[in-house]
């Protein structure tokens, strides 16, 4: 009864029979989604580099990558969670709460900043554990639970600091957050992101745990019978998601040198967009980390390039939205047309013979 795949949309059940064949056909036509999204990324970078002034400069690359660090970090655990058929909409609120907790601890506890950073990551993990407990312990739909904690954690982050901001972090720390690798214009923060991406990639694609994630995304019950401890795995995924949010909270606070209650507001939808754009199925069970990383970069490059081309930053959400819709509509539309052509051809062959 408590099936976990998000919104099995009624229309999708209409014709489940040719689904498998269709997808295989689609893969043949487009290459894998990963390849398509990487190709789109390359095209976008080339086009922007050629036509948008100041895009292909070191300074721009630095800011582009710095702006993408939070999104990229949050997308990693989100990918795993969505692959299991769950979702975590509370990530941005957890980042906000971790940020204000960091500010408050720095303001009033007198602990060293190193210790505070560790504490904040642990607190993030605890927040994620609350999500995990509600989802796996009480068997509630993660969509509803994390909409609840989205409001709860954001509210608490305002409770912690009110409308105040803590900004007096030591300059050596805030400078370190935006520092570049010596001799290049690549931000140093990219290194831990890449390391984490590799770790998540290995876990997802090369370990039994990763295979178990796909299995439970396709069918919880079957995964259970195959010996996977579904609730425990999902619980830990939410904990990891929370810990990463703690990390992003620390980064966000130092990067903007400001701990505020509204930090990262609304970022959750961008994260989900990036993950879906990266080819992960919202039903769970399908997708890969390479596509998601490419999706994050594509989103960032497009926004950055259009911004440099003087498009209003807020109007850019058209691009985000359209990309998301196209990325889900296009494969289905193509598959539809192919299926129809195929049927017509078969019918023609039947009438001919």
């Amino acid at each position: 009864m408590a099936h976990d795949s998000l919104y099995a949309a009624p229309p999708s059940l209409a014709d489940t029979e040719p689904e498998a064949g269709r997808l295989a056909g689609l893969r043949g036509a487009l290459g894998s989604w990963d390849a398509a999204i990487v190709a789109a990324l390359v095209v976008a970078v080339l086009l922007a580099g050629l036509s948008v002034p100041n895009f292909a400069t070191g300074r721009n690359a630095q800011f582009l990558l710095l702006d993408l660090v939070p999104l990229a970090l949050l997308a990693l655990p989100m990918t795993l969670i969505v692959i299991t058929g769950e979702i975590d909409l509370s990530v941005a609120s957890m980042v906000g709460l971790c940020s204000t907790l960091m500010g408050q601890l720095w303001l009033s506890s007198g602990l060293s900043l190193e210790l505070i950073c560790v504490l904040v990551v642990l607190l993030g993990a605890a927040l994620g554990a609350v999500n995990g407990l509600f989802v796996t312990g009480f068997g509630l739909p993660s969509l509803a639970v994390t909409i609840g904690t989205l409001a709860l954690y954001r509210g608490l982050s305002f409770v912690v600091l009110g409308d105040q901001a803590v900004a007096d972090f030591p300059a050596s720390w805030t400078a370190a957050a935006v520092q570049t690798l010596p001799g290049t214009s690549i931000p140093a923060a990219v290194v831990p992101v890449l390391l984490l991406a590799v770790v998540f990639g290995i876990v997802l694609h090369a370990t039994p745990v990763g295979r178990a994630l796909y299995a439970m995304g396709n069918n919880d019950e079957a995964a259970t019978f195959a010996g996977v401890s579904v609730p425990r795995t999902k619980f830990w995924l939410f904990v990891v998601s929370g810990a990463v949010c703690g990390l992003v909270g620390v980064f966000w606070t130092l990067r903007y040198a400001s701990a505020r209650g509204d930090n990262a507001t609304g970022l959750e939808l961008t994260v989900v967009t990036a993950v879906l754009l990266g080819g992960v199925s919202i039903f769970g069970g399908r997708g890969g980390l390479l596509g998601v990383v490419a999706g994050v970069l594509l989103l960032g490059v497009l926004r950055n390039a259009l911004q440099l081309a003087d498009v209003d930053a807020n109007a850019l959400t058209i691009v985000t939205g359209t990309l998301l819709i196209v990325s889900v509509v296009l494969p289905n539309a193509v598959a539809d047309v192919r299926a129809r052509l195929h049927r017509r051809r078969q019918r023609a062959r039947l009438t001919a013979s």
Partner: protein
Amino acid sequence: MSLTDTGASVQAADNPPPGPGRARRGLTERLLAVRELSLLIALAALILVTTLRNDRFLSGQSIKDLLLGCAILVILAVGQTLVIVTRNVDLSVGSILGLVAFATGELFLAAPGTPWPLALLLGVALGAVCGVVNGGLIAVAKVPALVITLGTLYAFRGVDYYWAAGRQINAADMPRSFLRLGNQTVLGVPVLFLVALIVVAAVGFYLRSYRSGRELYAIGSEPAAARLSGIPVGRRVFAVFVANGALAGLAGVLYAARFGTLDAAAGTGLELQVVAAAVVGGVAIFGGSGSAYGAALGAVLLTTIGSSLAVLRIDPFWQQAVVGALILAAIGLDRLLALRMAARLRGRSAHGA
């Protein structure tokens, strides 16, 4: 499930809310199952506590403000109920509201003489068009509504920003007769609230008493079974999104009338509040259960919490946290009741056999 009989409500009026005393466990349970009733009790308790603290909370002006404040959220929550009942969700309502509100302002700027009923109709029509986009894309893409409406959330908002290009529309630009719609009262009741009441009554009656209304529940309970029993699932879901878009359009026009000052950010983030109101109101996030009345009460409760916190001198920053906690409590309670109900049904059938 919340449509079970209300016969027990009479004896229950003086019962403390949720106190599972052993003897009357059956009664309490049945009471809790009638979500509208438990919401009313919670609302009454909240108002009582607040009034005890400050008796001006129940003064005419304060009640008027409350009714005015909740009208727009009520309309949106009722529309969202139509969608959620069919096991879908529409995250784009906040953006539709913003777009329609700005369009209404633009209409009055371009044609100051437009009579307000025409503006209202045009606003509803524009909302319905947005709904057609949602419904059409969902039908074509055969992916969950969550993904599509997440995309249109961005797209509609982007169109809004693009159109507004940083401008703001002021109350002075709109005709008096239109603005009066937002503040006028009939017999002490704000017109806005009366409109909301009409919407609640109409949708509530439709969901309960019309064949196609009941079919929406069937679709939400089990889309495949609904299809097999001859319900035109695709058409119904499409219609539901158009109806919800139209209601969001109506809310947008009312928003313009109430606030007068409009920019492209109107209604940002409202979608989560709307879903929260519906969930608190007992609309199951996975479809098949819930009523428009419950959702409307949920919206009223959320709004009342906001204003009573201010009266209770609780830091207003707590409001969002309370809303989040309430969502978690509501879905937890639903889950508990469903489990108990299932256990009882199992027990009964075992006796029968």
